[in-house]
C-alpha cells in the first residue's frame, strides 16, 4: 500500500520543522506548506510590515528545511481569509472593550478549515502542525502517530480526544479548544509526544537548518508586541481619553483611551503614588477605566459563551482562564446550549472578557468557551 500522505504546516520554526522530519521518519509521505497570512502597509512609512511569523525570511527558513528533507514545498496565501476571520475579529473584540484570543479562532478557521481543505484537495490524508498537543481515541489509549494512522483508517466512527502535550510547560491545548471531531480526525500533532528540549535536540541531530531559530512570541500579526499602536492603526473606537476611577467611583486620573488597557494590567496607568492599582474593568458605556486592589481582581464565578465541546461536559473538572495559568478546580452549570456558568473552588485573578476558558478532565480537553 502507498504510504499515507501528510501536509505539514511549516512556519520556519523549530517545532514544525521537527514535526515534518518526525512524520517522514514514521514513513509518511510529507508535503510542506507555508502559509502567508498577513502583511500590513502603514501609511506613515509606506513600508510593508510583514507578519513576523510569515515573513519572507520565515518562508526561506521553512523552504530550507523542506529542501533538507527533500519534500515538496508550497507557499499558500490566506491573507484574505486570515484578515476576515482572525484580524477583524481581534479588532472588533477590542472595540467592545474585550481582550480576545485570536489564536483560537485561527486554529479553527484557518488551520482547521481552509488549510485542512487544501490538504484534502491535495489528496493528502492528514494535516500536521507543530503544536504541543496530542490526539487520542475514545478508549483512552494515548497513541503515537503511527498507531493513530492505523486506527484512523480502520474505524471511521472512532471518537477523538484532544490531550495535553507531554511537555506540560509547552502545552498548547488552550489554543485548540475550538477544534471539532471532524478536524481531529484529519489532524496530527507529531511534537506533542516530546519535550521542547528533545525537539531542539532532534533538530540539531538531524541537521535541520531551523534548529537555532528563535521562538515567535506574542500575537503573530502585531509587530514588536505593541498592541496599542496596532489597534490605533486599525480603529478609532475606544481611543477617546476619559477618567480613571476606583471601584467606589472616585476619580483618580485620566486614561488615554480604553483600547489601551486590559484587565489585570498594572503598568502604564500613570497614577503615581506608592499604592499599586490594577485595571479591574473597562466600562465602555461611560468611557471609564476602573482600577482597584489586587483583591478586586479576584472572582469565583463567570459566564462563558460560544461553547464548543469535544467530549461530554462533566460537572467536576478543571478550567484554565488564560494561557500559562494553571487549570483550577471548578463546577459547571449548563445554562443553555451556548452558555455555561463556571464556579471555581478558589477565586481566580483577572477573569478577562474575550479570553478563552478551556475545560480539562485530567489530560483531556473537554471543550471551552469565551469568557463573557
Amino acid at each position, binding site marked *: 500500500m502507498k504510504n499515507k500522505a501528510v501536509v505539514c504546516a511549516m512556519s520556519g520554526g523549530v517545532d514544525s520543522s521537527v514535526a515534518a522530519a518526525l512524520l517522514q521518519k514514521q514513513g509518511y509521505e510529507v508535503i510542506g506548506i507555508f502559509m502567508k497570512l498577513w502583511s500590513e502597509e502603514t501609511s506613515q512609512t509606506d513600508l510593508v510590515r510583514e507578519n513576523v511569523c510569515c515573513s519572507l525570511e520565515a518562508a526561506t527558513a521553512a523552504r530550507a528545511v523542506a529542501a533538507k528533507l527533500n519534500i515538496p514545498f508550497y507557499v499558500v496565501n490566506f491573507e484574505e481569509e486570515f484578515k476576515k476571520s482572525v484580524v477583524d475579529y481581534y479588532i472588533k473584540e477590542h472595540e467592545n472593550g474585550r481582550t480576545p484570543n485570536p489564536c483560537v479562532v485561527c486554529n479553527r478557521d484557518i488551520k482547521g*478549515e481552509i488549510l485542512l481543505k487544501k490538504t484534502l484537495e491535495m489528496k493528502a490524508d492528514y494535516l500536521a502542525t507543530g503544536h504541543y498537543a496530542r490526539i487520542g481515541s475514545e478508549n483512552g489509549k494515548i497513541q503515537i502517530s503511527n498507531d493513530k494512522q492505523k486506527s484512523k483508517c480502520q474505524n471511521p466512527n472512532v471518537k477523538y480526544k484532544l490531550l495535553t502535550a507531554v511537555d506540560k510547560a509547552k502545552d498548547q491545548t488552550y489554543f485548540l479548544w475550538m477544534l471539532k471531531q471532524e478536524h481531529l480526525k484529519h489532524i496530527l500533532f507529531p511534537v506533542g509526544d516530546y519535550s521542547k528540549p528533545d525537539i531542539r535536540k532532534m533538530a540539531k541531530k538531524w541537521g535541520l537548518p531551523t534548529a537555532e531559530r528563535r521562538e515567535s512570541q506574542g500575537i503573530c500579526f502585531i509587530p514588536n508586541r505593541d498592541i496599542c499602536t496596532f489597534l490605533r492603526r486599525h480603529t478609532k473606537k475606544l481611543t477617546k481619553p476619559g477618567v480613571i476611577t476606583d471601584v467606589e467611583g472616585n476619580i483618580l486620573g485620566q486614561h488615554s483611551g480604553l483600547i489601551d488597557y486590559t484587565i489585570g494590567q498594572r503598568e502604564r496607568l500613570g497614577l503615581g503614588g506608592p499604592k499599586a492599582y490594577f485595571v479591574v474593568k473597562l466600562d465602555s458605556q461611560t468611557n471609564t477605566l476602573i482600577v482597584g486592589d489586587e483583591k478586586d481582581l479576584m472572582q469565583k464565578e463567570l459566564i462563558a459563551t460560544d461553547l464548543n465541546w469535544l467530549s461530554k461536559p462533566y460537572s467536576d473538572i478543571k478550567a484554565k482562564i488564560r494561557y500559562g495559568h494553571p487549570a483550577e478546580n471548578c463546577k459547571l452549570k449548563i445554562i443553555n446550549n451556548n452558555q455555561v456558568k463556571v464556579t471555581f473552588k478558589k477565586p481566580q485573578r483577572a477573569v478577562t472578557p474575550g479570553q478563552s476558558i478551556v475545560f480539562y478532565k485530567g489530560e483531556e480537553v473537554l471543550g471551552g468557551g469565551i469568557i463573557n
Partner: protein
Amino acid sequence: MKVYLDYSATSPVKNEVKKALLPFLENNFGNPSSIHSWGQVARTAVEKARTQVAEFLNSKPEEIIFTSGGTEADNLAVRGISNWSAKGKFQISNSKPHIITSAIEHYAILRTCEYLEKNNLAEITYLKPNKEGLITKEQVKKAVKKNTVLASVIYVNNEIGVIQPIREIGKMIEKENEKRENKIYFHTDAVQAAEYLPMNVDFLHVDLLTISGHKIGAPKGIGALYFRKDVPLRKIIFGGEQEMNLRAGTENVAGIVALGKATEVLRDKKYEIRAEKTLKLRDYFIDRVLKEISEVELNGSRQSRSPNNANFYFKYVEGESILLSLDLVGIAASSGSACTSLSLKPSHVLMATYNNAERSHGSIRFTLGEKTTKEEIDYTITNLKTIIKRLREISPLGVK
C-alpha cells in the same frame, strides 16, 4: 512522468545556444570595453550578437540595446521616453506627457506606468480589453491626446496568450503621426511572441520592441530593446558609457552571445513552420479539455492566440489547488495569480478581461514548448480529469 508545460515562465537553454555561450564563461572572458585582445574578442562577440538580433527583427544593429531582461527593456522604453518628453515641451506648456497602455500588460509595463502616474511624471490611459482579451486599434485611436508621446501594447499576453493587433495599431499610429505636431511612439512587449510570431519591426510598424532571452532558449538575465533610430530614448541606468551610452554596466557577454544565437536559431526557420507542431498539439489539448471536462472555459480568444498557450477556467475549483495537485504528479503549469511570490491578487489580466474574481482564482495556464509531446499532453489530460473531479467533490468542511 515529468511534464513541463510552463514554457511561458521560462524555457531550457537550447543546445546550440549553450555551445555558443560557454567559451565566454571560460577562455573568452574579456571585458568588451578593454583595449587588449581579450577585450577585442568579447567586443566582436557582442557586436555579432547585436547583428544577429537586428537581423531577427529586421532592424539595424545600432537600434538594439542589450538589457538585463524583458523587465529592464520595458522600463527603459517607458521611462526612457517619458524622461525625454518631461524635459521637452510639456514642461513648458505645463502639462504632463501622456502614455496609452492596456490593463493587461505585463507588470514590467504596468507598474512602471503606475510609478510615473503616482509621482506625477506622466498621465496614463489604461485600455480595457474586450471579452476576448483583445485591445482594438479604435480604442487606442480614441485614447490619443495632444500630449500623447507613447503607446505600449503587449504583443502576446503572458497569461491568456492573446495576440494583440500590433500591426494594425502601429499603422494607425503612423497615420495619426502624419497630422500631429509631436509624434506618438509605439512600443510592444514581444517577450512571449518571439518564438512563434512575426518579429519584423517594419511589418509590425513599431518604434520600440522588447524581447527576453530565457523565453527563447537563452539563459535568464538577458534581454534587448529595439528602438527605431529616431526614438528620443534617455537612459535610466547611470554609469559607464556602454550600449551607446544608453545602458551603463559591463555587458553580460555570455548572455548577449546566447541571445544572439537564440535569435539566429529562430531565424533559421520561418515562424509559421516553427509554430506548426506546437499549434497542432495545443489545439488537440484545448479540444480534448473542453470536450472531456465539464464546466470549463478557455480564457482569451481562441482565434487570436499564441500557438503555445492554453488557459482554462475550471469552474468551482481553485487554481492553486489544481496547480499543487498537478505538481504532485509531476506536471508543471501556472496560475494567473502569483501565489508563490507571496502575494495574493487575482490575476489582473483575467480581472480586466472578465471582471470575475472566481474566474481569476480558478484558472490555469499551460504553455507548450519545443519539446512538448503528445504523450505528455495525454498524461496531463488524464491527470487533469482526475484532479478536477476530486476537487469538485471536496466541498468546504463547514463544521463551524
